[in-house]
């Protein structure tokens, strides 16, 4: 993208991009810090008198931190709680317990108007761009709306910013008068990204940003996310089920299973030396576009499906599907330990 970074808080304050092969030295304060975040949804029964008969532990004690300018990739299969986690970080879902700090401010302590104002610092890109854009608003209105909500700029300034942002995401100025249905899937996702960028946030949570797109378009959008990160000094929390997508975008990766992190490490480490059986199984399940690799690839086929997050298995949650499970796994919940520098895992064994 050829645009000059004109964003407030853009290039000037942008930290150097941390690459995965460098060791993660937490010299600077993390931009996003999440501590023991829990989101439990009550299960209610009864018609006249509702009583709570249990809880779905969608997110059950997840801690992580993201360096400014970094990308944290959260992977897991459907139902693992990754989307709920992302929404809880942005306070779109009310956490049951735990703390979220963004740039030193405690997001979980904010209420009412202060929370509303704070939201300009954290934005979200959704999976389904069509569902997240108002079909009756043209692009001009869609992009100006966040600015209006936060009382930023005059009409002319808002339009100027909209044009700049469109340029940054690779759309021409001429689209301002057009409506969401007139765009292709990839262009709509560009719009979704532009809208998240309008307030020049510090953090963008991308929930499955490319999974609804065709392969050739996925690559365009991933490259765009990379470029924008450099240009606007963004910090990403990328939530996805596709391990290859997460690997490409992230410098740190966490793997979630049934509401908990089971492994967290730098991207290079986790893909080269996965330590948790679930991570190993996930990685071995991804078909590679190369028949030679496919012919010799060792596949770990997991048995069965994801257990219910309302009633997770005792001990290690993964034990019911784990090919290496032993008696201890059913009795003792494995601690979240550091198996190597910067590489944490929740498993009793060193695999």
């Amino acid at each position, binding site marked *: 993208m050829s645009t000059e970074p004109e964003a407030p808080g853009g290039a000037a304050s942008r930290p150097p991009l941390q690459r*995965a*092969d460098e060791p993660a030295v937490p010299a600077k304060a993390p931009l996003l810090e999440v501590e023991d975040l829990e989101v439990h949804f009550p299960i209610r029964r009864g018609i006249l008198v509702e009583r709570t008969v249990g809880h779905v532990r969608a997110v059950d004690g997840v801690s992580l931190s993201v360096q400014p300018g970094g990308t944290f990739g959260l992977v897991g*299969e*459907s139902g693992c709680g990754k989307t709920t986690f992302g929404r809880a970080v942005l306070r779109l879902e009310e956490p049951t317990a735990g703390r979220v700090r963004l740039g030193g401010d405690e997001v979980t302590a904010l209420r009412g108007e202060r929370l509303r104002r704070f939201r300009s610092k954290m934005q979200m890109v959704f999976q389904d761009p069509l569902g997240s854009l108002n079909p009756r608003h043209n692009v001009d209105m869609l992009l100006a709306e966040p600015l209006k909500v936060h009382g930023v700029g005059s009409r002319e300034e808002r339009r100027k910013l909209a044009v700049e942002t469109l340029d940054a995401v690779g759309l021409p100025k001429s689209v301002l008068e057009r409506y969401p249905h007139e765009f*292709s*899937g*990839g*262009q709509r996702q560009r719009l979704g990204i532009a809208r998240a960028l309008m307030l020049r946030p510090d953090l963008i949570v991308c929930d499955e940003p490319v999974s609804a797109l*065709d*392969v*050739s*378009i*996925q*690559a*365009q959008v*991933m*490259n765009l996310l990379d470029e924008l990160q450099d240009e606007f000094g963004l910090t990403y929390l990328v939530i996805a*089920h*596709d*391990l*290859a*997508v997460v*690997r*490409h975008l992230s410098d740190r990766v966490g793997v979630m299973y049934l509401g908990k992190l089971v492994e967290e490490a730098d*991207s*290079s480490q986790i*893909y080269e030396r996965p330590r948790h059986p679930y991570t190993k*199984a*996930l*990685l*071995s*399940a*991804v*078909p*590679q*576009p*190369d*028949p*030679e*690799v*496919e012919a010799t*690839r060792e*596949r770990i*086929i*997991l048995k*069965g*499906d*994801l257990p219910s997050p309302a009633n997770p298995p005792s001990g290690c949650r993964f034990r019911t599907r784990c090919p290496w499970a032993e008696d201890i796994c059913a009795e003792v919940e494995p601690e979240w330990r550091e198996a190597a520098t910067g590489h944490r895992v929740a498993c009793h064994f060193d695999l």
Partner: protein
Amino acid sequence: MALLEVEDLRVAFGPATAVDGVSFAVDEGKVVGLVGESGCGKSVTSLAIMGLLPKRSRGNGRLAPDTEARAVTVEPAGGAEAAESSPAVPSAPAPRTAIGGEGRRRGRGADVDGRAVFDGVDLLSLPSAAMRRRRGRDLAMVFQDPLSSLNPVVPIGRQITEVLERHRGLKGDKAVKEASHLLDRVGIPDPARRLREYPHQLSGGMRQRVLIAIAVACAPRLLIADEPTTALDVTIQAQILELLRDLVESEGTALLMITHDLGVVAGLCDEVNVLYSGRVVESAPVRELFARPTHPYTIGLLGSIPRLDLPMDEPLRPIRGSIQDVIRWRDGCAFAPRCDRVTEKCVAGEPALVGAVHAHRCVMAEEVA
């Protein structure tokens, strides 16, 4: 002679051409892939072969047998011809009373042309009743979304025995026993209990297994799977692919695999056909295709995929533009507007599919090779 030979298949929905002359063959016991992105015509190809498209006419202008019977001709004379002569305006006012063939001529239904020869019989010219007898018995299909393919208010046991009754004449306990055996075959634990359950009580992976059980109930010679794992999680996808691999190996079923995922293709298929904008742009045996991709679209697809087996800093090389940037095949290469290697030759006329074992439809590749 191949088990299925599709020759010059064309499918059009009114003015929109979905499949524009697709030919390929599926040999007995082989897995053939149709690969492409949304809108390339891969699903429509499979539906046409299965006779599941709402038909309206054949290439010779004759109405399809099932629509012929229901054709209600209450239109003013000349109305149909007028509409036919201006196919670019699909919204020409249609008399609402015309619900049969004539009404379908307007915008509904598909024009299917070409041949799909299965075991010596052209499926496209079979009457509906004959096709119904074959569908589910000789050739069966598995769809992407198992929830919408199963009847939500019928227990899955009944949905399996239905096929067994119709095509294999099994009744009562015998059918139930066979259904239970089938569920066991596709790896569903506790099949006797599962038979009494409804689709919503099963997980996505289980539902897909049920669909596969229904599809293989009559030991079809050809199984068509349309994105069977796209809606599933990666660990469940691995289970289903393993099951399909196993079925092909043990039963000798031929499999036509429709997918957008080149990883799935690499691991499962013997032959691959890459589709773009309704035409095959490249076809080759699987190893040959991945070792020497020739059409710029195939090369572009491969460059767009983030891969776990390559270094992390390997940049993605996406294809520019989108599928909307297209020209008609008869004017040149439909991929030309998105191609990096485009020249004037590319838009000077219809590119032909050249080559036998490894065929491609690119005028520039001819010169390169």
